[in-house]
Structure formats: structure tokens, C-alpha cells
């Protein structure tokens, strides 16, 4: 819900604005936090889960931090960069938030990061968007990402499918925007180094409904299809692929088989059993912190997913970072948020999936989980952990210069010709 600012708040904000530069916020004033997720379109269910993660973090602080009430402003986008930008503008310029958390999707993140350059007085934390360039290409001083990104999320996956599953030749089917580019780079880096080959890379526009012609074009001499899609796109693809008699096993991008898909209403998803993927969390991770967090999720949202999804996780971690840092500085943001940003930069954040820190680009370094979709025996599906890669950074452990020499992840980078 959006709280209309009270008249008194508006008056004190005005007074504050008139004496700008000398004063910092008063301790009795609410802290204004904006949150932006996709509640429309292809990632609507994902956005809903992101909001749940945000609410859990605020709930953990009982709605206040260092004695200041947390006032929440919500906004929605539809996964397109321009909708994310206008929602971010509304939060910053009309609702005058101090901190903005979001957005959800890859290309949206790049747009919001660029906007962060124009609004140095606001501190931005990522939601779950996971494009590589957001923090690697011209990063913004005031944009922090405590969640890992698409390239990092696929760390270990290429090795796992090549060595454990024995897949040597794959076709790639992906949505055509920055997040899948990042995932493909993460996957191909390992898979191709080991000697795996990619028959073809196929891109479809986001929100493609009819995959029949793409399926007809699918190469036949492959061991598996690596699908980097999410939301309703992967559901449509799955349904149509099965209807057309497709039988190749899948390898999932991080959001292709996360809980928003495994818990979705509709036809059986048993086809997905055995599908490997990797990402920032695993549903059956038995660390006590994770289990406690999972139980809290199920308690807070009886109508939610079976287990918190990747989006809930990312929004939770980023919101938790913001609130923890705020508490460290006693609710005083400091001149130009300097105190807050120092605290964020140096934070060693305890999350349900281990300790997270940010690097010099304000990008998280965290553990990555390799998982396989399994049945819980009661008709439900979950991601069973089969491996953990610890402390994955944005350059996958390569020296930064060497990594950057290959260029940023893009539609045709890494090129498929070098992997055939």
C-alpha cells in the first residue's frame, strides 16, 4: 500500500529543504524507502515474491530502524526499462524517498543505475535485477547490489552438467535482453572451456507466446536444451515443447526453474524433474539460518510459494543490507548519505545463504548453489542442492583485466562460433 505523506511530514520536509546542506534528518522523522518490482506482465508472479522478500526484511526490523519509523512507498513496472525508469522517477521525485530498492529485471537494472547517476542524493539498492553491466560498466557511486548477478549465478553449472550429467552438446534458447546474455556468459565460460559445444543460440523476444516455430527449428543432435527464460515465457515454452513431442532434457537458467515456476498453477511440471540449474539459493539448504528464514516466509505468507523464491531472496538480502547499515549509523544518513554508504561498503552482511560483502564496484560476492529439480513425493517440486561454489565474485575468479578483455555479455558475446 502507498501511504500518502501526512501534512506534518510534508511541512517538515519543506522546512528541511529550506535549510538544506546544513542539517541531516531528524531522528523522530520516518525514513522513506521506495520499493520497485514488476507486478505486471511476464514477471508479475516474480515481482509479487520480490515484494514478499522486502516485507520480510522490514518485518524483521519491526517496521522501524534506529528509532525511526520505516515509511514504505511501492511502485510497479512491467519488466521494460522505460516502465522501471518512470516508476523510479515517481518514487524519487514525487515521493522523495531516501532509499530506493529495486528493480527486478536485468535491463531495468541498467536503466535505474543510469538514473542513479542523475540522483546522487538518493541511495539505490538493487532488487533482483541481474544484468552484468549494471555494476561492471560505468557503475554508479550510489547504486549497491548485495545480490549476485546473472554471470555469477551460473558459476559451477557448466562444469556440473558436463562432468556429472554428461551433456556435451547443447542448444541455447533465451529471452532477448541483458539478463540472459549474462547467464549465457556465465554458463559458456565453464562449459566451453571443458570442451562442451553449443549447437545454436536462439533468442526470442520477451513475452513470446507461441514457441512452435522455434521448437520446430531446434537442432536434433543435442544432449540438452539450456533455457534461459523465466515467468510465463518458460511455462508457455514447456507446455508447447511437450505438446510437440519434445524429449530433450533441460538445463535451467537461474529463473527457469525457481519456485515461481515450480509452484505455478497449471499442468504438471514433472517434466522438469532432474533439471539442473544454479543460483543464489537452494530450497533444501539445511543451514539453520536458511531454515529459520524459510519457515518465517511460510508463516508470513500462507498463500505464498512453497519455499521463498530467488526474487524474494534477492529483495530480502538487499533490503536487509539497507536496514542493517541504517542501524549501524544510528538512522543518521549523513551529509549526502556519506555515512550510510560507508556503512554499506564495509558491511559484512549475514544472510540466510551466508555472509555477503560488496566489492569496489558495490557488487556482491556470495556463495552460489548448484541444484537439481526434485519431487518432494507429495506432488510438489523443489531445488535440491547438489553443490556449492563459495565466494563467487563478478569476474568468476579471473583477474579483472583478463575478464574484461572478453567484453561485456551481449547477444553475440561470447560468440557461439568459438564453442563448436
Amino acid at each position, binding site marked *: 500500500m502507498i501511504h500518502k505523506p501526512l501534512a506534518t511530514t510534508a511541512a517538515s520536509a519543506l522546512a528541511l529543504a529550506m535549510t538544506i546542506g546544513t542539517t541531516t534528518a531528524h531522528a523522530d522523522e520516518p525514513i522513506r524507502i521506495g520499493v520497485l518490482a514488476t507486478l505486471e506482465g511476464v514477471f508479475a508472479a516474480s515481482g509479487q515474491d520480490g515484494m514478499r522478500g522486502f516485507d520480510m526484511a522490514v518485518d524483521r526490523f519491526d517496521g522501524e530502524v534506529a528509532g525511526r519509523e520505516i515509511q514504505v512507498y511501492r511502485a510497479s513496472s512491467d519488466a521494460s526499462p522505460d516502465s522501471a525508469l518512470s516508476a523510479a522517477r515517481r518514487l524519487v521525485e514525487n515521493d522523495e524517498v531516501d532509499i530506493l530498492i529495486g528493480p527486478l529485471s536485468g535491463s531495468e537494472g541498467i536503466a535505474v543505475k543510469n538514473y542513479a547517476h542523475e540522483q546522487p542524493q538518493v541511495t539505490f539498492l538493487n532488487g533482483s535485477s541481474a544484468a552484468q553491466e549494471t555494476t561492471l560498466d560505468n557503475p554508479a557511486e550510489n547504486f549497491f547490489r548485495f545480490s549476485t548477478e546473472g554471470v555469477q549465478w551460473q558459476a559451477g553449472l557448466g562444469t556440473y552438467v558436463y562432468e556429472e550429467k554428461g551433456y556435451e552438446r547443447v542448444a541455447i534458447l533465451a529471452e532477448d535482453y541483458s539478463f540472459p546474455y549474462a547467464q549465457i556468459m556465465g554458463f559458456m565460460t565453464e562449459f566451453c572451456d571443458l570442451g562442451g559445444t553449443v549447437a545454436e543460440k536462439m533468442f526470442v523476444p520477451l513475452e513470446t507466446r507461441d514457441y512452435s516455430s522455434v521448437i520446430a527449428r531446434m537442432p536434433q543432435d543435442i544432449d540438452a536444451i539450456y533455457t534461459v527464460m523465466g515467468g510465463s515465457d518458460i511455462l*508457455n515454452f514447456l507446455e508447447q515443447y511437450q505438446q510437440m513431442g519434445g524429449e530433450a532434457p533441460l538445463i535451467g537458467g537461474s529463473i527457469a526453474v525457481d519456485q515461481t515456476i515450480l509452484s505455478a498453477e497449471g499442468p504438471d511440471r514433472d517434466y522438469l524433474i532432474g533439471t539442473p540449474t544454479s543460483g543464489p539459493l537452494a530450497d533444501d539448504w539445511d543451514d539453520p539460518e536458511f531454515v529459520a528464514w524459510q519457515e518465517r516466509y511460510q508463516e508470513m505468507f500462507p498463500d505464498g510459494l512453497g519455499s521463498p523464491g530467488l526474487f524474494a531472496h534477492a529483495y530480502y538480502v538487499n533490503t536487509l543490507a539497507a536496514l542493517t547499515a541504517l542501524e549501524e549509523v544510528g538512522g543518521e544518513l549523513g551529509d549526502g548519505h556519506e555515512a550510510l554508504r560507508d556503512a554499506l561498503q564495509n558491511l559484512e552482511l549475514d544472510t540466510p545463504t551466508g555472509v555477503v560483502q560488496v566489492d569496489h564496484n558495490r557488487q556482491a560476492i556470495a556463495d552460489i548453489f548448484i541444484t537439481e529439480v526434485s519431487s518432494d513425493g507429495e506432488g510438489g517440486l523443489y531445488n535440491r542442492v547438489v553443490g556449492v561454489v563459495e565466494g563467487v565474485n563478478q569476474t568468476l575468479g579471473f583477474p579483472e583485466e583478463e575478464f574484461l578483455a572478453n567484453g561485456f555479455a551481449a547477444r553475440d558475446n561470447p560468440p557461439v562460433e568459438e564453442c563448436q
Partner: protein
Amino acid sequence: MTLFLLTLLNGLTLAGLYFLVASGFSLVFGLMRNINLAHGSLYLLGGYIGYSTFRATGSWELGVVVGTLSMAAAGVLLQYFIFRFMEGEELRQTLVTIALSIVAADLMLWYWGGTAYQFTTPDWIRGAVSLPFTPLRYPTYRLAILVAAVVVGIALWLFLNRTRIGMMVRAGVDDKDMLAASGVNVQLLFCVTFAIGAGLAGLAGVLGGSYLSLAPGEDMRFLLASLIVVIVGGMGSIVGAGIGAVLIGLTEQFGLAYAPAYAPVYTFLILVFVLAFRPQGIVGRPLQS
């Protein structure tokens, strides 16, 4: 060769779905000169209502029936309470239907939310069948849509050309005033036509939602598809809607299969050529003022 054949079938089955939506749109336009820009909303609402029925009863067939009939009823209500009062005022009708579609989209978002829904189709149309004379297998469901479209097309043709009401509709297309003067209850005729047109949109909503999923935004997508199909084929003609649907369906699928990067462009190229060289559509007649 396999790819060509599959793409051809994909194009034809997609054309079947487009025909179901567009023929209703075209029928309403032909008789009433009413450009119903809320036609896409009828598609989505019919799909959603069908889905809710399916969820409540577990019967997909019942979902199809309820989705169709509820939209036919909605069509009658629209005609009786709204369009009756603005006959012949094209600009006003256009604005009112745009407003309706926006209001309906937000109401549907409020009630059904932003998630995508998918039907589970019953066993008798699930899976794939072997195609005769080829080693290929093709989804039964998509063929079923094509069959449904052909049946609906033939039924519509018979209705318009072989029944008394159909005769009145055709007479109304040519000269509404003369038809009224000869003692026909034109308002009733309008209601019947609108019910058929809207019911077809509802039917397409359930059938389309069963393999393309239902989500906000589909209303505009299918409105646009219907507009393109009837502009290319010719406004107000069932045969035109058929030709337009086949042309657009094939273009989209062959585009996706052979040159996906430019896929969205081809449809509009066809539209541009038709508007430039034959603005009344391929089998359309020029509008009489």
C-alpha cells in the same frame, strides 16, 4: 523440408485462432459500422471467465461453453446499454470503446492479478498425432483449433447465406434504413449480431488461452491482430477475415522460423502494401458514405 512443413502448419493453426477473433470483429463492423476497440477485452475476459469455470469445475469443455456464452451475453449488454445510443457516431463509438477497454483491463488486473494462467486441456486433445505421409508428429490441440476455425467459418457462411436472419444481416450491411422500413426489428438484429461477434471473441479467449496462456496485455495483442487481419482481408467480410488470418498467421510464423530478428516487421509490411494499393482490403468493398 520438415521445418517448412511444421512452419506451414504453425502458421495455419495460428491463423485459425486469429480467424476466430477477427471474424467476430469483422461481423460486428460489417453490420453496424461499429469499430469495437473493446474486442480484445472480450477475448481476455472470456478466457479468464472460462479459466475460473475450469478451476471451479475441473471441466475444460464447460470452460469453453461458459467463456463463449458469458461474452455473448456481455455483447448483448454492450449493444443494449451503450451502442444503441450512439448509432452512426463513429468517433464517439471509437472513444467509448477505447475507454471501455482501458477500464476492463484494470478491472481484470484487479480481479485476476498479473500472473499468467494456463488451462490443462483434456486428454482427448492433449499430446501429438502422427501426420499422414510424413514422419512428423504435431500437437493435437493446435490441429483442433484449426478444425474449430474451419467449422466456425463454414457455420458463419451458412448462417449469413442460407438463413433468414443471415439474409437480414446482409441486407442491413447494404442499407440499414430500407431494412428497418420493411418491418425488421433492427435493434434485435444488432443484438444478435453483437452476441455472435462477442461470443466468438470469448470462444477464442478460452481456446487461445489453452496454449498461449492468459495474462494482462493479451487483450491489446489480439485487438491489434484482429485489426490487422480485417484491414488486410477487408472490413465486414467473413471470407476476407479468413484470407487475412491465413496471410498474417503464415507471415508471422515463417518470419519467426526463417528470420527471427525481423519477425515483427513483416506483418506491418503487408499492412503497408495493402493500405497503399488496395485500401479497402483484399476482398473488401469501398465504404459507401
